[in-house]
């Protein structure tokens, strides 16, 4: 029983490859998808808050669709359906997976950013405008910096969820170059006929997520003290 779940030899056999290759790929997918998702989300949030109706509609439809669909469907759509239907494949070995997850998470993050912007009192905008700032400048220099402080906790949740969701990218097929933690451990499970690699994967995930949430918590407390 103990051997099947936690065989010390098999456990340590996973290292350092599970870190240097698998965890590295997980983090690369996460970083790329977060950057893409955050950039899209920022634009979508501004569109949702826009006085212009077509912008609001476009953003609403985008958010509803990609929040409403299972992430797997979006991943398959970007990775397989789009190259077939449109004859366009996102370039790069990390490209399709990062873009697909970026799109999925842009829907969640756009709503988070919008809520943060709406939480900044209108009086802040009035003060900024009274000093001659344009609407755009008020948003960039006054509202968004305050909004980001407000949304750090929910944004951290989304980042943690994103780290874990990179495991869904297995549906796009895995090569040795792009294999991430979950898929790496599943392959090792089959090779060793033992569940221990999965335990190693769990340890690696937690070694990433726990320090990260801790660091954000610390940052947040320091922020609050400064205010």
């Amino acid at each position, binding site marked *: 029983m103990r051997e099947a779940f936690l065989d010390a030899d098999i456990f340590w056999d996973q290292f350092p490859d599970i870190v240097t290759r698998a965890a590295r790929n997980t983090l690369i997918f996460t970083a790329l998808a977060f950057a893409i998702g955050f950039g899209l989300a920022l634009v979508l949030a501004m569109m949702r808050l826009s006085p212009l109706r077509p912008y609001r509609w476009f953003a609403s439809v985008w958010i509803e669709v990609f929040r409403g669909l299972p992430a797997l469907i979006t991943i398959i759509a970007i990775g397989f359906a789009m190259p077939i239907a449109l004859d366009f494949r996102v370039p790069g070995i990390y490209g399709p997976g990062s873009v697909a997850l970026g799109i999925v998470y842009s829907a969640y993050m756009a709503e988070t950013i919008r809520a943060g912007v709406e939480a900044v*009192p209108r*009086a*802040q905008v*009035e*003060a*900024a*405008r*009274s*000093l*001659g*700032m*344009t609407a755009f*400048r008020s948003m960039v*220099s*006054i509202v968004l*910096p*305050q909004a980001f*402080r407000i949304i750090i906790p929910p944004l951290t949740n989304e980042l943690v969820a994103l780290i874990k969701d990179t495991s869904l990218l297995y549906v796009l097929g895995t090569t040795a170059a792009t294999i991430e933690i979950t898929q790496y451990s599943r392959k090792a499970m089959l090779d060793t006929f033992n569940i221990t690699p999965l335990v190693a994967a769990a340890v690696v995930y937690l070694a990433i997520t726990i320090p990260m949430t801790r660091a954000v918590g610390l940052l947040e407390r320091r922020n609050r003290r*400064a*205010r």
Partner: protein
Amino acid sequence: MPADHVPADHVPAGQPVIEVEDLRKQFGALEVLRGVSLTVQPREVVCIIGPSGSGKSTLLRCVNRLEEPTAGSIHIEGEDILDPDCEIDLVRRKIGMVFQAFNLFPHLTVLGNCTIAQRKVLRRSRADAEEQARAMLARVGLADKVDEHPVRLSGGQQQRVAIARALCMGPDMMLFDEVTSALDPELVGEVLASMRQLAEDGMTMLVVTHEMGFARRVADRVVFMDDGVIVEEGPPQQVLDAPREARTRRFLQQVGERESP
């Protein structure tokens, strides 16, 4: 009126700084301003008094178009600011505004509050902006608070930072919207003292206030508003001590007279 009552050099002699004509503002079915006309000359200090809901804050907020009037006209130094072609962001640089709730930027230090618009709007260098900010903060007696965050300051200090922040843009006129109403009584004096100093320095000021003592000592002219119209206006002695209108008398009796610097 101050002895040195001469027009500022950038404004042609005789041209009002602020000229409001037959201004109307409706919020839904509620008509808050029902035809208000008001002129402010260079270096003049005009205090607007009146019961809450009389439209005085709305009038003030229309002057820099934080509120869009329903009808009427507003000219700032001769420019029609309700013209669709008017670049309101350029006009607002000339109009400093101080709010009841201070509205300082909480994510910035005192210095940051005073420099951000200078740098982003006027494109001043950081060094120039900071020099100006320190000078204006010294003017309101807060030279030693430059690195504090606003929440660390008392209400009176925050409001003086807000005054300095507006002054940093080098405005030709200042709007004050009940700036002492949110303050503890013992903090009111320091803010009024800064405003009085500003008036003595020749700033054109339009002040919505409940401080009758301030209006009496500092204003060149007092305007009494009620129910969306100007009921009476004139020198403070006349409006405050010998009001012609029954409505003005009633209001002054109700508020009593609060003495302050």
